């Protein structure tokens, strides 16, 4: 009679086959990125053979004015988009949390629409929208970035709303009552008690909006006019001719910024769970 070994769920992690599978998944996920980063230090024009370590591609990427401008544009857009998205998202989350009103259910689902609609459709819609309303195409810099910023806010703020809404669920309504009881007006109670509680959600949502905006290509591609170029779009245009290590270097920098933002977002979120 074959003996069956009883296993607790976590014991499966100790099985060699399971470990191998896990390793396989990680290799599959991260090899392309590793190669990209590795070859940004490769002392060769061709992206195939390792010739030696160098930082010259970073210098070259930095000296590329267009690339630098594109990166600055991207950071500017992401920054403005984050501020607007956090305000809009937080207000939306608060309204759905606090009030009851007709069609609340459908409206709340509708709020998630920009998250699920394919980016390509969204991009086309944005393009058509700006054309239809005759949005001025010839504003001076940096106002010619307005279209991109508006497009980014449209898809980024629902993410903020979802994160903040989740955070508000753990709010103890007696805290607000206590503030009122101690003499605060409704506004003062909101400022002194509710906003501090929302804070981890605001930070996490904001960083999410920042990353989303920073690396968006599709929607930006449709929303950008002549003379407005963002980092992902610039990289795309460079890659069309050839994938140079310069692109690798630039991409590595973006990965770094994105990872940093994500780590901060996760930190803020874990602070959320720890507190409640």
């Amino acid at each position: 009679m074959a003996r069956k070994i009883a296993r607790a769920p976590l014991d499966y992690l100790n099985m060699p086959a399971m470990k191998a599978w896990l390793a396989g998944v990680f290799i599959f996920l991260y090899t392309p990125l590793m190669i990209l980063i590795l070859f940004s230090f490769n002392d060769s024009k061709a992206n195939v053979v390792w010739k030696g370590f160098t930082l010259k591609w970073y210098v070259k990427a930095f000296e590329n004015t267009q690339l630098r401008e594109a990166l600055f544009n991207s950071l500017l857009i992401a920054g403005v988009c984050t501020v607007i998205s956090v305000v809009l998202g937080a207000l939306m989350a608060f309204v759905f949390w606090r009030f009851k009103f007709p069609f609340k259910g459908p409206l709340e689902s509708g709020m998630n629409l920009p998250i699920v609609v394919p980016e390509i459709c969204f991009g086309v819609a944005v393009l058509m929208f700006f054309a239809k309303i005759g949005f001025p195409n010839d504003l001076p810099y940096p106002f010619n970035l307005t279209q991109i910023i508006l497009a980014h806010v449209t898809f980024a703020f629902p993410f903020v709303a979802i994160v903040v809404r989740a955070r508000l669920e753990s709010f103890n309504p007696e805290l607000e009552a206590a503030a009122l009881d101690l003499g605060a007006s409704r506004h003062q109670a909101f400022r002194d008690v509710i906003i501090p509680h929302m804070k981890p959600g605001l930070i996490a949502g904001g960083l999410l909006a920042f990353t989303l905006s920073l690396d968006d290509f599709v929607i930006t591609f449709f929303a950008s006019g002549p003379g407005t170029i963002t980092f992902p779009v610039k990289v795309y245009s460079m890659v069309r001719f050839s994938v140079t290590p310069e692109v690798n270097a630039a991409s590595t920098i973006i990965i770094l910024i994105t990872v940093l933002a994500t780590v901060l977002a996760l930190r803020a979120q874990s602070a959320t769970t720890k507190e409640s």
Partner: protein
Amino acid sequence: MSDRDAIIRVEEVSKRYGKVTAVDRVTLEIPRGEFFALLGPSGCGKTTLLRMLAGFEMPSEGKIFIDGIDMSTIPPNKRPVNMVFQSYAVFPHMTVFENVAYGLKFDNVAKADQYGRVMAALADVKLDHLAERKPDQMSGGQRQRVALARALVKKPKVLLLDEPLSALDAKLREAMRFELAELQDKVGITFVMVTHDQDEALAMAGRCAVMDRGKLMQTATPSNLYEFPANKFVADFIGSVNLFEGTLEVDEPDHAIVQSEELGGRIFFDHGVSGAGGEKMWVGIRPEKIELLKREEGAAPPTPEDAPSGCNVTAGIVRQISYLGSESIYEIDLINGRRMQVSRPNLSRWDQEDFTWDDEVWLRWHGDSPVLLQS
């Protein structure tokens, strides 16, 4: 009560949520400087009433006066009352000091005076050494003290407490009972406490209002609630009671007799009851007011000296015994199958051996023990 002035007057107040009536025409006066308890089972409307005093709910009908001023149009932040919430609601992002100082910002207290008042309030609740702590570094009991200090520092006319002891463990709860009562004595502010725990209410309050299903059942001192309950609900809710249905047979100014099928005998009162004879009524007898005697075959019932022969005595058999240390509770089956509860203090270390399971016993009580209840 009219000789003492009332700090709170509740006049015919009702609160309805759609078809549900949470508070039903309650009229109540709370004297200045008293420790008052609103007592009742969950869902009886006591918390709704407290929230109406604080201003978080507005009455559907009726009026609330605090210190003579109609509160109908006054929002919570303008009322001269402060509350200690059930969850304590201590602000987690502020230190203890900041929590207590928070309410003073709105009272136009000079910055220079704030420090002294906050520290004095913290000293009152014995927390002055923890002023710089954050709430997440404190125990539940300490957080409750923060909530108390935060409310008392505002020098309210009334302090409202919502189930103040329910979240504490048993030992701490006992200690806090005395401490809260002492604190109330010291600060002299009227305390209004909501609780579902009758022991808590009896131990701490000078006066209790018992509520059931939105209605006020009785307002009285703890001992009057226990010894002179106004109805079956109060008699049953406060402590334990043996209730028997019966009819009034004799109704004289100085004594009365109720005949009860349920008891299988007659109950003598050594005082007049001024009830309408013949109608259905109930008699309540507290378990500790019943005497347990050994019953021997063929012996006459041992009627108590202050009652006519055959009254205030009944026969039964011991079925269950709960030994509680300071006393023992005996569940006794009467001849007609009805169960009665008798408690007996364990005055000597051998007392609990006097009666055991299946012992045949007499139960008897004095003429001043039973209480007549008309509803």
